[in-house]
């Protein structure tokens, strides 16, 4: 286990005059929860979008699971085990909770050029769907249209959809955004339970959440990684305090 699971090397991405990523480098190890924090506009979402393939970096490379994935399209990265959840809840509102999950499972079960059999009676979808419903605690809401779920439940569903493909890493983009305290606790518990089974890159605004969950934290500022370390190290790092917390050292 020498090579980290995910390795970002010298990523650069400019939008006109704005450098959203500047020589960005960091890595995520197998099984760890890695926090990615930084002030607004530090380039967190840009970084995530480059990792999952929606944005192509101007230069630099991304290695995942022993392969250079810099040029791979989004769906191919997802198939390799790189799953993401979105900052804005991004589910299929018109489908039921169950159907949302079944679709996510289908994505990783080979191709879907099956034109005949009914998907809702497909045993290879029903079984795994049940398992994930339990795992994210939504059994009671299985048949409900996803649009009827509460904000917190939608988040749980999103995580469930990301988990459906048995990913090696989960990119969570501000999972706690817009949630009440109850939802935050529930989701933190879920993330805690996932720990060890897969790596998680947690992009989050809520510092308390990050510091309580993460094994290591990377701090972004103006598109650059200015520090990486354990939560304790980050908390006491003077560079971070100055950049992030706006304190005069």
């Amino acid at each position: 286990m020498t090579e980290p699971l995910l390795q970002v090397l010298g990523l650069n991405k400019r939008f006109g005059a704005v450098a959203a990523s500047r020589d960005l480098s960091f890595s995520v190890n197998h099984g760890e929860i890695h926090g990615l924090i930084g002030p607004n506009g530090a380039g967190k979402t840009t970084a995530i979008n480059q990792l999952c393939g929606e944005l192509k970096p101007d230069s630099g490379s991304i290695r995942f699971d022993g392969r250079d994935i810099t040029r791979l399209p989004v769906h191919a990265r997802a198939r390799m085990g790189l799953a993401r959840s979105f900052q804005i809840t991004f589910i299929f509102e018109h489908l039921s909770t169950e159907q949302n999950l079944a679709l996510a499972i289908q994505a990783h079960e080979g191709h879907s050029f099956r034109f005949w059999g009914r998907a809702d009676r497909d045993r290879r979808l029903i079984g795994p769907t049940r398992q994930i419903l339990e795992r994210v605690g939504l059994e009671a809401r299985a048949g409900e249209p996803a649009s009827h779920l509460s904000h917190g439940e939608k988040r749980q569903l999103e995580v469930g959809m990301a988990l459906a493909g048995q990913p090696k890493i989960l990119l969570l983009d501000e999972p706690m955004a817009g949630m009440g305290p109850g939802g935050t606790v529930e989701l933190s518990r879920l993330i805690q339970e996932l720990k060890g089974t897969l790596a998680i890159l947690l992009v989050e605004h809520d510092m308390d959440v990050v510091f309580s969950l993460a094994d290591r934290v990377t701090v972004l500022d103006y598109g650059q990684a200015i520090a990486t370390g354990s939560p304790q190290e980050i908390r006491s790092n003077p560079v971070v305090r100055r950049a992030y917390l706006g304190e005069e050292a």
Partner: protein
Amino acid sequence: MSPKFSRKHLLLGLGLIALLLLPPVTGALGEGYLVSLFSRILIYALVALSLDLIVGYGGMVSLGHAAYFGIGAYVVGILAHHSYDGVPLISWPLELQGTENALVTLPAAVLVSGLFAAVIGFFCLRTRGMHFIMITLAFAQMLYFFYLSLETYGGDDGLSLYSRNRLPGLDLADDTSFYYLCLAILLLCLYLSHRLVHSRFGRVIQGIRENERRMLALGFPTYRYKLACFTIAGAGAGLAGALIANQTEFVSPGLMHWTRSGEILVMVLLGGMGTLFGPVLGAIVLLLMEEVLASFTEYPMVLLGPFLILVVLYGRKGIYGILLGRGGADD
């Protein structure tokens, strides 16, 4: 079973009985011409159904669907033309003769139009939204002008058939037999579409309509699925085109004109987008209204326009949605 559910079955059952009994009843009433009008309606229902697969289920609004309809019709027309004058269609690398056998012409129409849809879709599906609408329109107009200038096959005068295709065991020259053939094909395609939209493939297509970015992030290569859907829809339209060529015994570039694509799209909207029976209903209502209004006004659109606006404003799923009430028209 909810009451909505049985109401739906009642409606569909009555509709089916009405369509099955149409020839004997209109024959008894001495209104036999209605059989040929309804053959035409069933054919348009089929092309509207195929368009709904991409517009209603796949979320890809195409304004070029009549192109595949026209290609299907021309396959029948050109094969018949070569059959009459005995000149082979192709003589190299293998010799292909014309034919009037429906067992050959109908599958050929499906195949050729599906192939065209695959090639055109290959380019069009790299765009989305307004660009997609415009590029499908552009391809269709290109084909329209191509056939318009194709003097060998009649150019803008079109091609006349001496008779309908032959089908072993059924006399297609007889309007009633032809009507039942159209009905059987439509019912078969409805059943196939029903299986399709409820299959894994169908779920993927509907997922793409809802949120393509999410589908990519889940690991679906969405482009391939959209192209497959577009091809299937094109093939369906080609089948309808082959039938219309037989019904009118005439093929012309007008079948492909973009206004025809618009008319088919209106049928889908009017009947109920994203439902299987909606497009059928839309074709029936639109063509019947045109027929009735044409008898006392020169400009049926003056009255059809407001009607269409009302249906689209008040029925999320068109007439079918209104008939079934809230939440009843999900497939």
